[in-house]
C-alpha cells in the first residue's frame, strides 16, 4: 500500500483531481451569486487533495503539498478572514461591509457583494488547507498488528 493504488486509480486521479480542485474554487468564488460558498468549496478542494493522497500515497503527496504548507495556509486563511472583519472598523464597526459601503457592484456580476467575495476566498483557503493537512497527518498513521498506532514511512 505504500506506493499508492493501482495504475487505473492513479491515472483517473491525475485526470480528475484538477477538475475537482477548479470546481471547488468556482463554488467558493461564486458563493454570492449561486448556492455554495467558501466552506463547501473548501471541502471540495480538500476532497481533491484527499484523492491525491489516497491514490498516490502519503509520501508522494507530500512532494505536492507538505504539512507545513497546510498549517501555514490554514492559519493565514483564518487570520485574513479576521483581518477582513477588523477592517470593517474603517467604515464604522466590526464586520461592516467596508467595500460594499463604497460600491456594492452590479448584482449578478462576479465583482459584487463587497467583502462577501473576499471572505469566501479566505474561508476557502482556510477550510481546504486545514482539512488537507489533517488528512495528511492522518495518512502517516498506520495501525500496528497488536492494536495501537505507530508511525510508518509509507502510511496510507
Amino acid at each position, binding site marked *: 500500500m505504500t506506493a499508492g493504488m493501482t495504475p487505473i486509480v492513479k491515472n483517473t486521479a491525475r485526470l480528475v483531481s484538477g477538475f475537482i480542485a477548479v470546481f471547488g474554487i468556482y463554488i467558493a468564488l461564486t458563493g454570492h451569486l449561486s448556492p455554495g460558498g467558501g466552506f463547501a468549496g473548501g*471541502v471540495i478542494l480538500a*476532497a481533491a487533495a484527499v484523492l491525491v493522497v489516497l491514490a498516490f500515497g502519503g509520501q508522494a503527496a507530500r512532494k505536492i503539498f507538505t504539512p507545513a504548507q497546510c498549517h501555514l495556509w490554514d492559519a493565514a486563511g*483564518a487570520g485574513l478572514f479576521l483581518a477582513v472583519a477588523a477592517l470593517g472598523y474603517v467604515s464604522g464597526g*466590526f464586520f461592516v461591509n467596508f467595500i*460594499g459601503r463604497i460600491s456594492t457592484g452590479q*448584482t449578478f456580476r462576479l465583482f459584487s*457583494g463587497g467583502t462577501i467575495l473576499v471572505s469566501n476566498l479566505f474561508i476557502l483557503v*482556510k477550510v481546504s488547507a486545514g482539512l488537507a493537512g489533517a488528512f495528511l497527518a492522518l495518512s502517516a498513521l498506520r495501525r500496528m498488528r497488536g492494536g495501537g*498506532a505507530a508511525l510508518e514511512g509509507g502510511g496510507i
Partner: protein
Amino acid sequence: MGIEYLVLLLLAVMLAAVVIAVETRDLLSSVIAIGAAGFALSVIFLLLGAPDLAITQVVVETVALVLLIRLIVTRRDTADETQTPRDALRTGLVMLAGGVLLCGAYFALSGTDGVIPPFGEPVLGHKPDDAIPPGVSADYLARSAEQTGAANAVMAVLLDYRAYDTLGEATIIFVAILGAYAVLRRSGRKKHGIEEADT
C-alpha cells in the same frame, strides 16, 4: 403537502439507517449506514429549499465517508464488546425516555399560541395576512441585493448581516483541526508506539 410526506419518508429512512448503524456488528456496514443517513438528510435540505445546506451536507458527508472507510478498511474488525440483554434494555429505556421527553416538549410548546411555529413557517418569517409584525427575514429578502450587492441572499446573511456567526464557525473548525494535529503529532505518536510495542 406532498413535501411533508416525502420528508417523513426520508426521516424514516434516516431512522432505519441510524438504527442499523448502531446495531450492526460490522464497522464498515455501520459507517455506510451513517453515510446513508447523511445523504437522506441532504435530500431533505434540498426538498425544503435550502440548496446551500444541501451542497455542504453532500460534500462533507462524502469526504467524511471516504475518510472513515479508509480508516476502517485498514483494520477490518467488528465491535469488540458483546451486548448483554440487560445493556440493550437499559439503552432502550434511556432512548425511549429521551424520545418521550422531546415529544412532550414539542406538544407542550407548539400549538396556536405556542413558542414553536408550525412546520414550514420559520420563526423569522411572516405570513402576509399576519397580525404579528414581520420578522427580519422579510427585510433581508427584500433589501439584501440592494444593500450588499450579493445575489445569493443566504451568503448575504452568512457573511454580512450575521458574519459574527460565521466567524464563530470558522473558529470552531480551526480549533478542531488544531486538536487533530495535537492528537496526530509525530512526537507523541512515536513515544506511544514504542510503549505499545514494549508491552
